[in-house]
């Protein structure tokens, strides 16, 4: 097992080395070497991750802890730096490092036109990867939180990479603060967990879960099951990171960052952290049925909300960003039904096809010299044949057309929702199925608007050119994953080998039969999502190829609805009125009225009473340090002596 442990450590720490070298020495060693170093170390990391997963599966060992160092150790609280190797973490590490390696490579090409040195960009990318790897390999919740905040920092830096753009800086700040709001609840959840279990390490928590099932916690004057409170708090943390409804506002704005960032943050890694958290905490979540119900409700609602908004966005990256939001909703629905394997399966396939879509969109934007408005594109298929082909593959996977990757994972989730039954199951199934239609519709809307039909802005079209091999190579690799990933991984993630594959790293309660009943979904019900997907493609074809006037007419005839969707259900405006502006006003009020008038006023009033005395003091201000010091010392001695003698 020693080889697995060391390979695993190398996989995690190689990106850190890359970040440090390029970040601190970037200006000394220059851009070309920085690029080679960071990409090279990512290749090492990905190689080691694959090898570690391979050997680990071969040995079929249960969780292995790789101790690194002690960390916080005070007042009965312990948290150590430890890497945890089990299938859940190893599969995540492999996925994250592989996708990240491809994105590093892609960035070499994508950032080649930057005027300023880009070693900073590679440092951030590697730092981000390291933080994400620390998150997924954590052995306790505090280390998970370290990675959790680390990806938050890196995403802040990456979104604000072009910091001379005010919108990028604003988006970066927004992303950080919205995440922080959720993180506060997460942190309180961790503290509560410590209060209950007396530990934050996974093994110790999971081992004592049965003893604490009946525990309760008083809140709002009522007694709640403690597991439910903790479950809800952890889920709020997950909502922030995974941009679920009410916390989603940062994600579309995060599109201000360079495109590889979007791929890294919104596809493979950061936003899936919330799903990972629920899978990781499955031994606890399984005993919090109400919290799980909330997960389903929020997941399904986000799924639907984001898809409707994605339907009308003119910006190519924002469309894909909302699609990410929506797909994350699917994963949460699965997790909420206790179908963590399905959530992880969709997470993995989604990583491939969404990274592919973002990077292809980047290739398009690159070709059109930073144009992102889809209504200024069109007919690019001939100019960008490879990009067009891989984007088709990505959309086929996203739209869940068989046999592409998304079909395997998404249909499993929808079937799972159906088989879970009850009101919740019906609610989730209805929304998820409807979204299958919407997903296909907005995906093909994008494809048709960008690649087919007539060019809308000829001059942009004429100058468009296919990207270079450094950009295309990662796209092709990801396209292979998007095409065959679902079929290849299904037996391991949710199929016949799943028990051996997960090997206890995901827990299902004894009464949780989602996986077992998955196969028994009635034939027609199982077909509905696929039929709707095809229908979505067909509708998109009609609306954007055959009769392009239909969408415009619809937008006119249902203008309020159209505006409602275009403005993302007015969440930003609402939050601005509800929180941002009142908070700023309160800050000014407290400063000027609270601090300057009231709190400052009392001593000022006292001072005014003694102003006669102080004018006399002014006269003896000589400016000599010795006189001051001497006078004060004498005063002190006199004061003390008085008190000591007059007892």
């Amino acid at each position: 097992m020693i080889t697995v442990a060391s390979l695993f450590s190398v996989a995690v720490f190689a990106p850190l080395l890359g970040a440090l070298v390029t970040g601190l020495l970037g200006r000394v060693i220059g851009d070309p070497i920085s690029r080679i170093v960071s990409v090279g170390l990512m290749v090492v990391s990905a190689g080691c991750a694959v090898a570690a997963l391979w050997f680990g599966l071969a040995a079929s060992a249960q969780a292995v802890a790789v101790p690194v160092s002690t960390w916080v150790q005070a007042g009965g609280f312990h948290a150590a730096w430890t890497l945890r190797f089990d299938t859940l973490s190893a599969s995540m590490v492999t996925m994250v490092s592989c996708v990240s390696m491809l994105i590093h490579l892609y960035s070499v090409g994508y950032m080649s036109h930057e005027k300023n040195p880009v070693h900073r960009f590679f440092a951030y990318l590697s730092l981000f990867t390291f933080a994400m790897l620390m998150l997924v390999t954590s052995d306790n919740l505090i280390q998970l939180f370290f990675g959790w905040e680390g990806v938050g920092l890196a995403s802040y830096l990456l979104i604000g990479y072009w910091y001379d753009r005010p919108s990028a800086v604003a988006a970066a700040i927004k992303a950080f603060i919205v995440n922080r709001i959720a993180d506060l609840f997460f942190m309180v959840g961790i503290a509560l967990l410590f209060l209950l279990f007396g530990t934050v390490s996974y093994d110790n928590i999971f081992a004592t879960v049965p003893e604490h099932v009946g525990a309760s916690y008083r809140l709002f004057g009522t007694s709640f099951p403690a597991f439910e409170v903790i479950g809800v708090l952890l889920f709020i943390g997950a909502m922030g990171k995974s941009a679920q409804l009410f916390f989603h506002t940062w994600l579309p704005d995060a599109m201000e960052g360079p495109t590889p960032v979007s791929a890294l943050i919104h596809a493979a890694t950061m936003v899936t952290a919330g799903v990972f958290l629920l899978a990781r905490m499955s031994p606890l979540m399984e005993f919090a049925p109400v919290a799980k119900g909330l997960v389903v409700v929020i997941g399904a609602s986000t799924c639907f909300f984001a898809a409707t908004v994605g339907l009308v966005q003119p910006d190519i990256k924002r469309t894909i960003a909302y699609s990410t939001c929506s797909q994350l909703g699917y994963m949460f629905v699965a997790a909420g039904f206790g179908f963590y394997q399905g959530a992880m399966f969709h997470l993995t396939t989604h990583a491939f096809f969404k990274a592919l879509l973002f990077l292809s969109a980047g290739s398009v934007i690159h070709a059109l010299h930073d144009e992102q408005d889809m209504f200024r594109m069109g007919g690019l298929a001939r100019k960008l044949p490879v990009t067009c082909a891989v984007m088709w593959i990505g959309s086929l996977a996203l739209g869940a057309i068989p046999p592409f990757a998304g079909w395997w994972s998404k249909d499993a989730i929808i079937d799972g929702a159906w088989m879970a039954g009850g009101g919740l199951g019906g609610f989730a199934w209805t929304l998820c199925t409807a979204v299958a239609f919407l997903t296909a519709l907005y995906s093909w809307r994008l494809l048709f608007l960008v690649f087919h039909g007539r060019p809308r802005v000829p001059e942009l079209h004429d100058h468009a050119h296919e990207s270079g091999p450094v950009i295309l190579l990662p796209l092709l690799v990801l396209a292979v994953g998007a095409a065959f990933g679902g079929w290849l991984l299904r037996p391991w993630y949710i199929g016949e080998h799943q028990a051996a594959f997960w090997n206890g790293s995901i827990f299902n309660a004894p009464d949780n039969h989602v996986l077992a009943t998955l196969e028994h979904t009635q034939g027609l019900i199982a077909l509905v999502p696929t039929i709707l997907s095809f229908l979505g493609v067909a509708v998109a074809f009609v609306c954007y190829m055959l009769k392009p006037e239909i969408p415009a007419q619809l937008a006119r005839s249902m203008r309020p609805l159209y505006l409602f969707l275009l403005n993302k259900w007015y969440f930003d405006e609402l939050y601005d009125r509800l929180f941002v502006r009142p908070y700023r006003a309160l800050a000014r009020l407290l400063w000027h009225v609270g601090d300057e008038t009231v709190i400052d006023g009392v001593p000022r009033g006292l001072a005014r009473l003694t102003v006669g005395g102080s004018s006399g003091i002014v006269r003896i201000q000589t400016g000599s340090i010795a006189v001051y010091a001497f006078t004060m010392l004498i005063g002190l001695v006199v004061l003390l002596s008085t008190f000591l003698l007059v007892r």
Partner: protein
Amino acid sequence: MHLPLLTILTFLPAAGALLIALTRATPEAGDRSARWIALWCSVATLAIALLMWARFVPGQPGFQFEERADWVPGFGISYHVGLDGISLLFVVLSTFLVPVSIVAAWNSIENRARDYMIAVLLLESTLIGLFGALDFVLFYVFYEATLIPGSLLIGIWGGPKRVYASIRFFLFTFGGSLFMLLSLLAMWHTAGTTDIPVLMRTHFAPAAQGWMFLGLVLAFGVKLPLFPLHTWLPDAYAEAPAPATALLSGVLAKAGAYGFIRFAIPMLPDAAARYAPWMIGLGIVAVIYAAIVALAQTDMKRLIAYSSFSHMGLVLVGLFTLNAPGVDGALFQMLSHGIIIAALFLSIAMLSSRTGDRSISGVSGVAARMPAFATLGMLFFMANIGLPGTGSFVGELLVMIGAIHLGFWVALLSGSAMILGAAYMLVLYGRVMFGSVRSLAGGLRDLSPQEMAVLVPLAVITLWMGIYPSSFTRVFDPAVTGLVAGHRQAVAAAASPAAPTVLEAAR
């Protein structure tokens, strides 16, 4: 031979100050030699402090490096000094920040540098003295003595409103200290001695404890500062020259919190337990109020000053959770905050000395011109927000663990600094560092080697505290555990009717 290390440590800076005062030279030569003497003297002090850290045995109960000499034996007052795990690290913090502050002041203080160095060294002596004191009168003398160099530093080398700020700083702290003196006299009246270890074993009547506690709260609350006694703070921190602000906020403010942990909690356990909810309430108010006010600030230095106030509120919450993780967290927060806030004030000063403007709107796009500065600044800003991997996260985490023992809302509200702190810090960073380069920022030079020498050690320690905090917690955790256990026993004993109520001194 047994060297009186602590006494040497305490008076070495004062000796250096005397040496500077005695050196006769032309003003220029005098300033130059004063700088070098001050630097070497403070480095030697740091070396001794580190030696003591190395020789300190963490698990050993009681005080180490103890020294005792009669002072006023008839009244039970003695020169009694010594260190435990709690005070040791504050001594180390003081001795570390002083050389940093001296290097930072090397070029920025041009006017009367000789006097400046004397004042800084005297401040160091008084700080070490107050953390090492094991006699309440001795503590009081040092505590008051910090005021002299402290207010001189503000009043002579400060900004435009320096005299006003200095007098307010002096009057507030001095006024607060008078209440400490009253408490001191009351304690002495009961116990007949002012020896701290004896006072810690003395039981005061619960009613008397309340009054003594109030006196101590007023005294230390001004220094900390406690809401609403903070009105001197924004002016003092903003007007003082940055190297002095680093010492005032980095160490002197900690003297207030140290007072709580050394006197108020162990000596007055019943009152501390009784009034803990009020103290925690005030702490939470400070956390939230200061964070909100910070957002509205237009002056960078004042913003950081309010941020310091907000973080000290968290320290107060941690201390009065009265459980081991909470108190550990408060102590750790004090140490890490000392480093980070000093770094922030010094960074701001480096920027404003280049632009000649402290206002937030005065400069933008600094990151493009000063990449090294922007990188270090990002680290300190993120540390101030409490990002894991930096020291303040460990403190905040432990305080929150302590707070959750008291209730959900205590933890949630005291943790709200996570959000509010991020808001004002990121807005500041975004306005100043990011954005397009404005004319003023056009000709900025990046950090000089000397400035790097100031900031890089602070950055290294910030990360060290965040990644391997055990080097520090190891030192004070046993002392804190003992303190909390002792406190719990005392409260339990007072609750049982059989306990002696008035006096059970070690006489």
